[in-house]
């Protein structure tokens, strides 16, 4: 047995050489993704990790800036017909895909066709449905898309079913990105785009490594490489950040207070008004919940301030409406439902439930939402609303809510594009009941017609006024318990320059991000550079070749 010990000693000693290599890395490392992207094919981009990576590799006709405005992408400009239903996009000239293929208008048509083609199995055609004939094509009722044409190599003309003023915003979604017109069967693994980065390798469930596209039309990325690590356990991501191995971290919701109270760590935080609404969907078609007074009582029965302050350390804003305060159409002056059990009981009595009501409150297994559900249960009890908690794994809970089987369901909604329409229409318009996103099964003709009209309205001031009015109507109808808009906390290492946490997930391409240690020099593994002031003392450590951190 002594031999074993003797053998294992050198291994242990070997293993103990050097740890976090911190500021000496020239690779930018992102730790925000907690599961592997679905694919790198834009047509399959239905989740956040996929969308983020698609944003590195591809471009759309438009794109978002980190603060969520829409700017030209592969289209340099666009004209809109006076009635708002025909868009003429003028495409950027001289752009090439990373395999050398020139970018031409035809590829816009083929890319969008792939998104809508059922055999590609993407499942997210709706951003393109405003195009005339797109839905028919997706449903197999047409063999081509009537509303798209490429009169020459640098022009795309899109005819919409009806005017839709925010259409250019939808084109900045990852799913609308432009791919070459001929894609191989393994495109999802070997993508070719026009974006700022090129894929070097993808180790599933481990990391994705990117190299700069030196010919990028928008200016090549400044860093040598970018690595997106897939870390499924939030505490592990924090440990990696503390060890200096990753540059950008999403602070886990459960740890916000620790970070805020630690003087050193607080300096690294960058709060972002993420476009995320956390709420409890009230199914307005079930039992006592059909009565608006009962739904209002639910809102009065809950102290949302305490929930926001104690459960997520105040990282957010109390919601009074569904439109986040960062977006036009929100109303900061609207007064939310205040915690008032007397009022809640009185409303219940008026609705004919003097002895209270019995409801089921559904939640996924997300620890924060479980805690919120438990807290809600306690509050509601105070007003005589007896709630039975039902916790299901998230896919199962969501499915039940979509089928209308839940009374109350704790959930969230992230914006796909930064516009109030992305909250009002999917969450509350009666056209989207169930799978469309309206799991409140809310239906109010006045609200519906206002939102539908706002989608057609070309004048931004008028449109925003309509958003505000629609939000107000729904707020009085209380199809949900309005909780809060979550503010995401991003932690950024002190040696990182130029990283602005994006308001919308696919809006930070890392092109202007550098490490302060990124001075020109040999790019061999373990090349030591001087330690900049204010960074962690970093020992020059030969990185293990197998990690692929230094290409």
């Amino acid at each position: 047995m002594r031999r074993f010990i003797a053998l294992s000693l050198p291994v242990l000693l070997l293993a103990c050489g050097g740890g976090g290599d911190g500021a000496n890395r020239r690779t930018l490392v992102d730790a925000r993704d907690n599961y592997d992207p679905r694919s790198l094919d834009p047509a399959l981009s239905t989740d956040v990790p996929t969308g983020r990576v698609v944003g590195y590799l591809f471009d759309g006709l438009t794109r978002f800036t980190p603060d969520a405005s829409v700017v030209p992408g592969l289209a340099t400009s666009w004209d809109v017909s006076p009635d708002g239903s025909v868009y003429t996009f003028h495409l950027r000239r001289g752009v090439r895909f990373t395999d050398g293929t020139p970018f031409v208008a035809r590829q816009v048509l083929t890319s969008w066709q792939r998104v809508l083609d059922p055999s590609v199995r993407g499942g997210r055609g709706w951003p393109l449905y405003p195009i005339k004939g797109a839905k028919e094509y997706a449903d197999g009722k047409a063999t081509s898309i009537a509303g798209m044409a490429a009169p020459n190599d640098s022009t795309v003309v899109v005819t919409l079913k009806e005017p839709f003023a925010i259409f250019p915003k939808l084109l900045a979604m990852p799913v609308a990105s432009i791919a070459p017109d001929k894609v191989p069967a393994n495109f999802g693994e070997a993508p070719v785009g026009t974006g700022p980065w090129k894929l070097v390798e993808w180790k599933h469930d481990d990391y994705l490594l990117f190299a700069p596209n030196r010919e990028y039309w928008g200016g090549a990325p400044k860093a040598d490489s970018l690595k997106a690590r897939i870390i499924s356990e939030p505490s592990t991501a924090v440990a990696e950040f503390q060890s200096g191995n990753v540059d950008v971290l999403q602070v886990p919701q459960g740890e916000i207070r620790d970070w805020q109270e630690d003087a050193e760590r607080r300096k690294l935080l960058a709060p972002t008004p993420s476009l995320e609404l956390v709420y409890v969907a009230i199914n307005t078609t079930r039992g006592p919940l059909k009565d608006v007074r009962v739904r209002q009582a639910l809102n009065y029965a809950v102290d949302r301030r305490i929930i926001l302050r104690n459960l997520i350390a105040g990282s957010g804003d109390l919601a009074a409406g569904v439109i986040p305060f960062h977006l036009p159409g929100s109303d900061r002056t609207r007064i939310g439902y205040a915690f008032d059990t007397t009022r809640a009981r009185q409303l219940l009595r008026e609705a004919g439930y003097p002895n209270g009501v019995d409801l089921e409150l559904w939640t996924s297994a997300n620890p924060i939402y479980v805690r919120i559900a438990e807290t809600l249960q306690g509050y509601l009890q105070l007003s005589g609303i007896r709630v039975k908690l039902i916790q299901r794994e998230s896919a199962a809970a969501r499915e039940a809510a979509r089928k209308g089987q839940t009374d109350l369901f704790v959930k969230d909604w992230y914006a796909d594009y930064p516009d109030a329409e992305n909250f009002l229409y999917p969450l509350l318009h009666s056209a989207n009941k169930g799978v469309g996103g309206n799991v409140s099964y809310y239906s109010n003709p006045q609200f519906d017609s206002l939102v539908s009209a706002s989608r057609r309205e070309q004048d931004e001031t008028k449109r925003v006024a309509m958003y505000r009015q629609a939000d107000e109507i729904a707020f009085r109808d209380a199809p949900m318990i309005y909780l809060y808009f979550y503010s995401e906390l991003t932690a950024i290492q002190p040696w990182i320059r130029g990283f602005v946490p994006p308001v919308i997930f696919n809006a930070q391409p890392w092109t202007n991000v550098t490490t302060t240690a990124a001075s020109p020099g040999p790019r061999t593994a373990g090349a030591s550079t001087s330690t900049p002031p204010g960074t962690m003392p970093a020992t020059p450590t030969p990185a293990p070749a197998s990690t692929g951190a230094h290409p």
Partner: protein
Amino acid sequence: MSAFILRRLLLSIPTLVGVLVVAFLLLFVAPGDPVMAMVGERADEATIARLRQELRLDDPLYVQFGHYVAGIAKGDLGRSYITNRPIRKDILERFPKTLQLAGAAMLLATVCGVTLGVLSAWRPGGFIDRFGLGIAYLGISFPVYWVGLLLILLFAVTLHWLPPSGFGGVRYLILPALALGMRSIAFLARMTRSAMLDALGADYVRTARAKGVREGLVVGRHALRNALIPIITVLGLDFGAYLTGSILTETIFSWPGLGRYVVNAIARRDLPAIQGSVLFLSAVFVLVNLLTDIAYAKADPRVTYA
């Protein structure tokens, strides 16, 4: 012996067929629709219907099962609903990593566990015995999740000796192997100790000592060899369990193995991926059990499989 192995291999076929049927049927009973998981938060009924059609989910169950079995007969586990990648490729990419972690954990467990057990039995009640008992208590009662995080905090964040997580060389393997193997170290130490105590009290050990055999040989050859059967049993069971993917360990240490793959597949209702993994892992388990039985015969000449 070869006849035994052949018979066992043949017998494993009905087992695997049973697994196939159960894995297939269970998923249709379990809540959660794969298409709902595919389309994300916002969709429409027509898209869902088209996807169901595309994935043949509306075919009668026996037709779907027929397709599935026909595919497997050709060695094709199908393609993932979510990623469109072939399941076989996914599994073959991840299994070696799971194998590496399981192997390292077992090696660690065998070396530490058996050593600790032998030394404890050699001087029962002595310092090493009491130390071993302490280790065993800790190993069995601490949840792997907690130990994993503590190891990361100590060796990676505080001491900077090892990387917190990820996949790579030996440096990346040590912490997860320790977290995973800890329970086995504890079990093996106790199991070895009691088996060794029995063996050391046996007549042939007294005889061996009486005829002047060196103590090392007495313990190592006469006693340990006789104590091996329960040790092999524990090793076989644990190894089988580790090979089927150590979900928690892989999650905490961001280890890109099969355990995380299966968890992701379940979360996304990726039926072909779940079925393929379950089938593959069952085959692995059956194989490990067979190897354990063969190891019995090697360790103890009295065990024969004529």
